[in-house]
Structure formats: structure tokens, C-alpha cells
């Protein structure tokens, strides 16, 4: 860990957050969902759109997405980051933005996303089909894996084989997420879910049933990052970025070295080193749960439990409301929202919790949070460690 990186600890803060159109937003485009989220996040931060001089964004479809976003919002940013590494992108945008704020390249960064993939006529099915041509994987596509589900199913099969993890333990993750969602009025699926319902649900790609898989929803999300100094003069309680690190080890699941160890082990280690904290210091974990196996892998790779022990760790409601660790308190990608890329929503939920704005699902006296972004097929990982002023 370089002294330079350590000096960035707590140098920037999230000053505003917003979501818009989570669930179903018929008649809205990706850009409209993004713009409404961006507008609301700017207002939440007590700023005007004309104050925004940094832009971070990414799209599942458009490769030059930062340009139409700048055009649509009417801004001319001096800092632009459109790094696209899947759903982790919006957490991976943090550290470069902190450096840009530190250098004076910009003063207020808007990180934003929107997707109408559930209700749009060119939705998830069409995006997956077009990717075969725009972004080919010639050594996997001929075998017709149902991506991304089959990739995560392969990882789950390996975890079960090596550690004796059971489908029932995977189901615990979905049931806990649903219990949190029941406390969150913004969540898309809120009715109670039982382990038996997960186990008996339609199988998608063994060992994963449809209830082991994330939602397909619409939704937009945005947050504003400013210097810690400036955040103190803005209306919201600042949430400081104590650490952030990103790792990319592969793209295709067939190129993943060990299917039971993700590069969250690297991103987590580096982010914790920057923050000077460890898993035991976290008051909650917002983990990108595209599939139930994700939560188990990240609990292990981030140090909340030992490798191979996450199945036992989550049993008996341990990560549900009232359990020993608050995980995915909004209901996660499994039960709250998953418009193609979920990472920004994990971070927004962490911020809402640390501000004390989480209503019925509020984690009492929360000072620290981890937000984990995942992209592709366990391909990219970005870890953010966040904290209140008391943690500086």
C-alpha cells in the first residue's frame, strides 16, 4: 500500500444519493432513468447540475455512453471515467474520482446509471443476443451456457463439491435477502420466502433455481462524490470513502483459475489496507448478490469467515434481520433491484444506512460499511469501505 493511496483515506465523501424507477418503469428509457436519478442525487447533495464537473457512468449496451450522458445532462465535465467492467464499475469509479478530486481536476463527481432492461422493447434478451456478435466468446458460446447464470452455477457446483455446501445453505441467502426486502418499501419482491420455496422453484442451471438468481428489473441510481472538506458544508451527513480497490483476473468463467476464490480476495485486502480496517470492523456488508453463491464467496473472500465456511455461516438466519451480520439490507439484487448492473445500488444502500436514513431496516449505530461490486462472471471485483465522520 503506497503512502499516496493511504493519504486518500477519507479524502472524499458521498454527499448525495438517489434512485429512481426501481422495479418496473414502463415507458422510460435508460437515459431517462439515469437523468431522474442524477437530478435527484444532485439535489440531495444540495448542489445544482451546473456544479457537476466530473462524470462517471457506464452502460450495458452503449460503448460510448459518457458522451450521450454529458449531452443529455447539459454538462461539460473536466473529468470523465466510463470504465466498464460490468456491475462493479460504479464502485470501481471511486478511487480514480478521489484522485481527480485530490488533484483539483474536478470538484463534484456524478456517478450515475440507468437501465430499463425489464420493460424496454430492446431489453435483457436482446442485449444478450447482440453481445454474441459485439463481444464474442468463441470458446464458450458453442456450448450454449446460459450466461451469466450457468457461470455462477459452475462456481456453485465447485463450492458444493469442495466444501460440502448445500442448496439449502444457498437458499438461506435468498431467504435472508427477502426478509430484508420486506422491510424496504423500494424493494421489488417483498412477500416472505421460505427455504422450501427456493429449493422447489424452477431450476435454471443446476444447482441454481430461479430464486437463487437475481431479479431483472428497471432502475436508475446515482451518487455525488466531493472532497471531504467540501462535504462538511453540504446539507447531508457525509459518508467518507475510507478505502477502495478493484481487481480483474479473467473474463470468461472457463478462464477463472479457482472457481471458489474470487478476486474479491485481492480487492478486499487492498481496500481494507487503505482503510486500516478489517472485516470484523464492519457494521454491515452490501455484497453484489447476482446469485446466491456470490454472497457465500464474498463473505469468505472478504474475510467475514474462512474459505469454505460461508454455507454454515449463513445458516439459521445469520445474515437476515436480527442475525449476527447485516448483509444486503435493501434486499439485494435477489429481492430489491437488479437492472443489469447492481453495484451502484449496493453503494447507495450503504450510504443510506450510514446516514441513518434506512427506516425499518436501519442497522443500529452503524458507523462502517463494506460495499462489494461484482462484474461479468465473477470477473471483476471492486470493494469500497465507507464510514461516518467518527471513523476518520
Amino acid at each position, binding site marked *: 500500500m503506497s503512502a499516496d493511496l493511504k493519504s486518500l483515506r477519507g479524502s472524499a465523501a458521498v454527499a448525495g444519493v438517489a434512485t429512481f424507477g426501481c422495479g418496473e418503469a414502463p415507458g422510460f428509457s435508460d437515459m431517462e432513468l439515469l437523468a431522474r436519478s442524477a437530478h435527484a442525487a444532485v439535489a440531495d447533495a444540495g448542489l445544482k447540475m451546473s456544479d457537476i464537473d466530473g462524470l462517471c457512468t457506464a452502460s450495458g449496451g452503449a460503448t460510448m455512453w459518457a458522451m450521450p450522458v454529458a449531452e443529455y445532462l447539459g454538462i461539460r465535465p473536466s473529468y470523465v471515467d466510463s470504465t466498464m467492467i460490468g456491475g462493479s464499475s460504479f464502485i470501481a469509479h471511486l478511487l480514480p474520482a478521489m484522485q481527480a478530486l485530490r488533484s483539483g481536476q474536478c470538484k463534484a463527481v456524478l456517478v450515475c446509471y440507468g437501465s430499463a432492461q425489464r420493460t424496454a422493447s430492446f431489453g435483457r434478451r436482446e442485449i444478450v443476443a447482440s453481445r454474441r456478435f459485439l463481444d464474442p466468446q*468463441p*470458446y*464458450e458460446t*458453442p*456450448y*450454449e*451456457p*446460459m450466461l451469466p447464470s*450457468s457461470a455462477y*452455477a*459452475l*462456481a456453485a*457446483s*465447485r463450492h458444493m*463439491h469442495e466444501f460440502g455446501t448445500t442448496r439449502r445453505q444457498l437458499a438461506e441467502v435468498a431467504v435472508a435477502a427477502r426478509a430484508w426486502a420486506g422491510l424496504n418499501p423500494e424493494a421489488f419482491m417483498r412477500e416472505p420466502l421460505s427455504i422450501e420455496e427456493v429449493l422447489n422453484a*424452477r*431450476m*435454471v*442451471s*443446476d*444447482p441454481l433455481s430461479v430464486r437463487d438468481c437475481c431479479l431483472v428489473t428497471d432502475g436508475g441510481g446515482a451518487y455525488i462524490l466531493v472532497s471531504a472538506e467540501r462535504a462538511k458544508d453540504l446539507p447531508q451527513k457525509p459518508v467518507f470513502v475510507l478505502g477502495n480497490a478493484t481487481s480483474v483476473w479473467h473474463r*470468461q*468463467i*472457463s*478462464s477463472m483459475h479457482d*472457481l471458489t476464490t474470487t478476486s474479491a480476495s485481492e480487492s478486499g485486502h487492498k481496500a481494507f489496507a487503505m482503510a486500516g480496517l478489517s472485516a470484523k470492523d464492519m457494521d454491515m456488508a452490501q455484497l453484489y448478490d447476482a446469485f446466491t453463491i456470490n454472497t457465500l464467496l464474498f463473505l469468505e473472500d472478504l474475510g467475514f469467515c474462512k474459505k469454505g465456511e460461508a454455507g454454515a455461516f449463513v445458516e439459521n438466519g445469520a445474515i437476515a434481520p436480527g442475525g449476527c451480520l447485516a448483509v444486503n439490507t435493501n434486499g439485494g439484487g435477489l429481492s430489491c433491484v437488479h437492472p443489469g448492473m447492481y453495484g451502484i445500488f449496493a453503494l447507495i444502500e450503504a450510504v443510506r444506512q450510514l446516514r441513518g436514513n434506512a427506516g425499518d431496516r436501519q442497522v443500529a449505530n452503524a458507523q462502517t460499511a463494506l460495499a462489494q461490486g461484482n462484474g461479468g462472471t465473477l470477473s471483476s471485483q471492486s470493494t469500497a469501505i465507507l464510514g461516518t465522520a467518527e471513523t476518520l
Partner: protein
Amino acid sequence: MSAPITTSGIQARHQTELDQGRFFIQHCNACQQHVYFPRELCPHCGVAHLDWVAPTGHGTVYAVTTVRRKPEAGGDYNVSLIDLDEGVRLMSRVDDLPPQAVRIGQRVTARVQLIDGHGLVVFDAKTGKIV
């Protein structure tokens, strides 16, 4: 052995051989490691020349899933990750077992399946031996 292949990119050369029924992987003379999927440079040590070698074809199922599909669309099918004995991994399927019968640890042998002149590496179970 070196494959009798000449110009064009690595991906096209590999497919040309498959279309002739021949399955090649790569070997790095500098670091002595095998490489798959085939590429223009060694992902282990970075050198830009890799030799083509014929693998033994023997491997072991590393991870497995059954992709669910409606019977009228062809029914369920297997997708596996296979570790070749040479130490490389690839996605493929075990072709001669019912999908639900494919297990991690199953020993398998590669075969080039030709359909309309297009070659694809699939695997058959080696009977009686699970390691």
C-alpha cells in the same frame, strides 16, 4: 508436434484444425506451460511464440451444470469445465452421459465433433474410473 498451419490469426488457425478433426492446444517453450484457449502470446510469461501441440485428450470434469431447457426446444443439456491432464481448462460438454449423470471428478476423453464441416471439442466419459 507442430501443426501444419501457416498464416492467419491464432483463433482462425485453431478452428481450421478443428474443422479437419484435429484438436490442438498451445505450449510455451519459454516457461514450459500449456495454454488454452489459444492466443497470440503466453499469458504466463508474455512471450509471443507458442507451439501447437496435440493434447492426450484425457481430462477430468472440474465443474458442472445442467442447463434447463424445455423438452420441445431440445431438453436439458450439460455444460462442464474440463481440466485436461496438460493443466489447462476449457468449457465443453460431456456428450455421452445424461446431463444429470455428469459428476465433478469424472474422467473424460476429448473428441472433435464435426457438424456441417465445423469442428467442436466435446468429451466422452471414460467408464469405470472416477478420480
